[in-house]
């Protein structure tokens, strides 16, 4: 039974390849083409200052989306990232403003993020609450905690040592961009070249087979959510360092942005296969579009609408790529072997 969807698309993915270079190439071209179009339509888009702005805005989404790539590849999902980011940043900000050493405050943020991620992971791996439900509940509860902590309170005024993380630059390159870039390389290495990454892909692809092969499936799953929590804290740190403020409502609707970046990048929503490179390009694409809409003077509410539509399109493409929509795949090139496999029903 667990093999059924797999057999149904044994010969389905013709063009996609595991090697990230090819998998990400099409999307990379789309991003470059879009950038050129935006630049032609509105020259203000193509200024160095604006492009640096796009990259900086993309930086924390890239960081968090790299973590989400692991979660989704493990056949999970995390809807609580925005709320966790809010909780971690309001508490961290408050502590540092209250006189705690910035390093210590940052450490508290990471410990809090990791611990809450661990709790989520334990609920999913051991209490067997489906990831969607577990993280939906966490999303609501964590937002509640953030509001309890500082409803109506706008925190601002971080020490320069911290704002440098979000506003500084090294040799003309914004620091957040450098951090995101380095982190993405680390994430790609972790994903493709470590035992942990392999095990994440294995449990997402076929949990039972992974278990039989000796993969500690529950432990790997918990670590995935711990990683997600830590990564959310890092993204939050850079975000508040950049805007030098935070409040309990920060990060609202962030999960949809992050999940969209991952799916657009080509990671399978059904687990097992993913690409960190694609995620980075997907996050860049979203930031670029948001930026272009802002420059064009499109209302924020319309931006939300566009974001939702992009997510729907991305998921539809993902499904088509994996031939999970039988009626739609009728219109695509069909291969006789596949229809046999589909009808075998084993």
């Amino acid at each position, binding site marked *: 039974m667990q093999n059924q969807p797999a057999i149904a698309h044994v010969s389905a*993915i013709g063009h996609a*390849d595991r090697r990230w270079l090819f998998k990400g190439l099409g999307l990379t071209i789309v991003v470059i083409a879009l950038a050129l179009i935006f630049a032609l339509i509105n020259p203000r888009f193509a200024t160095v200052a604006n492009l640096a702005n796009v990259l900086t805005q993309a930086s924390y989404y890239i960081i968090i989306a790299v973590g989400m790539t692991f979660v989704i590849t493990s056949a999970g999902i995390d809807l609580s990232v925005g709320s966790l980011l809010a909780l971690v940043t309001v508490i961290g900000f408050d502590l540092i403003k209250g006189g705690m050493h910035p390093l210590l405050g940052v450490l508290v943020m990471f410990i809090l993020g990791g611990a809450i991620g661990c709790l989520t992971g334990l609920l999913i791996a051991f209490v067997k609450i489906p990831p969607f439900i577990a993280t939906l509940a966490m999303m609501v509860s964590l937002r509640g905690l953030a509001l309890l902590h500082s409803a109506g309170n706008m925190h601002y005024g971080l020490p320069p040592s911290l704002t440098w993380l979000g506003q500084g630059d090294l040799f003309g390159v914004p620091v957040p961009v450098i951090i995101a870039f380095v982190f993405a390389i680390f994430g790609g290495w972790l994903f493709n070249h470590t035992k942990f990454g*392999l095990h994440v892909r294995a449990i997402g*692809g*076929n949990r039972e087979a992974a278990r039989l092969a*000796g993969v500690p499936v529950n432990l790997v799953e918990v670590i995935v959510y711990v990683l997600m929590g830590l990564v959310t804290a890092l993204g939050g740190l850079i975000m508040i360092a950049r805007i030098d403020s935070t409040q309990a409502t920060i990060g609202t609707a962030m999960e949809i942005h992050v999940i969209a970046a991952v799916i657009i990048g080509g990671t399978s929503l059904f687990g097992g296969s993913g690409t960190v490179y694609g995620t980075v390009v997907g996050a860049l694409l979203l930031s670029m579009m948001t930026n272009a809409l802002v420059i064009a003077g499109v209302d924020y509410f319309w931006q939300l609408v566009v974001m939702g539509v992009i997510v729907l399109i991305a998921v539809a493409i993902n499904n088509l790529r994996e031939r999970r929509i039988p009626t739609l795949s009728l219109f695509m090139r069909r291969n006789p072997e596949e229809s046999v496999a589909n009808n*075998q029903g084993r």
Partner: protein
Amino acid sequence: MDEGGGNVTATTLMRVVGLQKSYGGLRAVDDVTFDVHHGEILALVGDNGAGKSTLVKALAGAQPPDSGRIEIDDKPVPLRHPRDAEAARIGCLHQGLGLVDALDVPENVFLGRELQTKVFGLIPQLDHARMRERTIELLDRFGVHLPRLNEPVLRLSGGQRQTVAISRLLLQDVRLVIMDEPMAALGVEEGRRVLELVRNMRAQGISVIVISHNLEHVFQLADRIAVMKNGRLVGVVETASTTRDAVVRMITFGQLH
């Protein structure tokens, strides 16, 4: 380590004595005694419900018997858990194969026993190159060629997937492999390749127990044929000195002659 020398030598690898397993009032395996020789292919045949699967599960440690014993190299081996079977170097190929479709061939072969190197002599990372090399070596040793190794195995054919699953077992240096209907759902050419692979395993001294409904395959492949009916072992016959009709009679009437 016994390499068997290729042909059937009559030395015993595994001895099953008085094995019994009941489900409620049903005796699925009833006082079964037989030997598996070093480097032989033993086919296990019988109608549905004859007890083949239950017997094989007991040998793989997946379902401990109620009574009876299993000896390997004349020493009793308790097989209470799949881990015990692994320790005894018994491999079992399930019908589901246990592959992760999204992973490529070396990743599937090595999943759970990955090879690693150290970056800067410090940080462990997967040794993709060596896993790939060892996979190719393994496949070569058993005369198998797979066109593409670094693609998800979901894109491989049924027979190729079968080969990958068998490679997983071969990596563990097994001396007995149990296969449940390995040729089912394969095309003619694919089935022939798997037959060849099984013969190559025998040539390397590995003993193989094959469950099959297809007597044609059984006669092509097996050195000896064990027939079961209603949980009992009707008999074990040499393939060379029996006929299809005789085996069919054993399956249907449960009589040796």
